């Protein structure tokens, strides 16, 4: 085989590293987690309401509910704000401003989650406890912080979606006598819908996957949260908070939680790819 052929095959092999790693991850996590799901029974694992490993109860439903509420809250906070900022950057400011803003947003996306969690712990949690009641460590605190954390994702992708629209959309609407706002609200945003939805789905993926900040401010109670002021636990924090000590069945149950998480994230990612149609960074 010529050297060129060897190199080509070599590059092909290297290129499969990302799929290879993904497969490895799936294999090892499943290998640890699936036997336990089978042992406990998928139904009682996913829908069981009691998580009490030392007594052999492995129901993760409270965590699924916790993840759901916190993510929903994050979207309620993050999507309107994010889309508003995207509109702001795209339509309400001159291009120069947005060239400055975009790297700033990327910068903010790079701030570690422990810093966000710390701020939530020091600032938000006492505020909530003093003014709204409950322990402060709550779904509300988690949603607010998570909402802020997903803002960069939603802003940058939505803004790209808006910018990608043909100028004729805007010009056509304006020339028909629409105000700027009417153009934005009735023409541009609907046209950028698929990009914005993709950003929301990716934001959701980011929110569901967040661990450190949530461990710091959700309180981690194992029960189902009954209000936004109650403490909760997500699938990720369940793993994060008990992984250090767990052995045997308990540890496998945490991997099983990872399996569920894996499926959810893969599902969301695939959905996002369908919706946006093209590959996103």
């Amino acid at each position, binding site marked *: 085989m010529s050297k060129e052929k060897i190199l080509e095959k070599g590059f092909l092999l290297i290129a499969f590293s990302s799929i290879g790693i993904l497969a490895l991850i799936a294999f090892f996590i499943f290998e640890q987690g699936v036997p336990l799901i089978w042992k406990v029974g998928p139904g009682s694992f996913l829908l069981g309401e009691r998580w009490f490993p030392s007594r052999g109860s492995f129901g993760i439903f409270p965590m699924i509910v916790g993840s759901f509420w916190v993510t929903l809250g994050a979207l309620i906070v993050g999507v309107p704000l994010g889309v508003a900022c995207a509109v702001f950057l795209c339509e309400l400011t001159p291009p120069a401003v947005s060239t400055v803003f975009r790297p700033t947003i990327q910068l903010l996306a790079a701030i570690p989650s422990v810093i966000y969690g710390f701020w939530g712990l020091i600032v938000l949690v006492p505020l909530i406890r003093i003014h709204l009641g409950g322990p402060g460590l709550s779904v509300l605190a988690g949603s607010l912080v998570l909402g802020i954390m997903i803002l960069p994702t939603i802003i940058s992708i939505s803004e790209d979606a808006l910018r990608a629209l043909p100028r004729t959309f805007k010009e056509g609407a304006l020339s028909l006598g629409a105000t700027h706002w009417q153009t934005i609200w009735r023409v541009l945003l609907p046209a950028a819908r698929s990009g914005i939805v993709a950003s929301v789905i990716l934001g959701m993926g980011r929110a569901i996957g967040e661990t450190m900040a949530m461990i710091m401010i959700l309180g981690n109670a194992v029960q189902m949260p009954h209000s936004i002021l109650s403490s909760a636990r997500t699938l990720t924090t369940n793993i994060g908070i008990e992984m*250090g000590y767990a052995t045997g069945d308990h540890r496998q149950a945490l991997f099983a939680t990872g399996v569920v998480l894996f499926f959810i994230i893969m599902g969301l990612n695939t959905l996002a790819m369908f919706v946006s149609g093209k590959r996103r960074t």
Partner: protein
Amino acid sequence: MGIRKSLNPIWALAFFIFAILLTGCQNPQGGLTVVGSTSVEPFAEVLAEEYMAHHSQRKIYVQGGGSSAGIQAVRTEAAQVGMASRALMPDERDLIAVPIAYDAIAVIVHPSNPLSNLSQDQIKNIFSGQVTHWRKTGGRDHPITLVTREEGSGTREAFQHLLMGKTEISLGALVQDSNGAIRQVVGDDPNAIGYISLGLVNERVKAIKIDGVEANVENIKEHRYKIVRPFLFIFKTTPQGMARGFLDYILSPAGQKLLVQEGLVSVTTISDSQR
């Protein structure tokens, strides 16, 4: 010649990686690895720091992970020494356990909490979730914020075993994954109650008396305060070499004094009281 030149960066990189791996692949642990309970961990770290200050050639790596993980690590020889904050279970008795100190578990509340004494039954009722309002115990008019350690924690197991007995801790309790974190939460929330290692109680929280008995060395020695657990060092076989040296230091008066300074009860105190 030209082809060789363009390959150079690749070879250089490969060599570089190889070199790194080679230098890294020395004897991994030229030192002692001590793994286990996060309750024992801070004290083991302080002891290790002192020990290494006097024996600069020896390295001791202290790591958390929990009592069970520590015992497991010793069994699989991933670590030379394990730390446990609970007594060994029957199926762990093949390992060697040496008490290095005793630690009481204190039930703590916010310093502003008007209560300073609760009966064991009252504490049980609070932690099981039966009593959810401070009013019911004579305190202020506010719901109780309950804080506990996570499942698998040696401290939680000890608390469960020594105080709660058969009563389960409420599933609605807030969960924090270290003594320090519980101390933070209780110190910030005027309505919180939790439990931590007595050695970690500081001015941010208040330890309450149980059945009128205060948690202090005197009461521990006289067996009046009963929520006491041993801090154990676990070995697979009789400790030798550096492990022995470290253990000897810890059990020596100097080592024990350090532990007492940090808030623990020395082994000699307990063995004296058993005479």
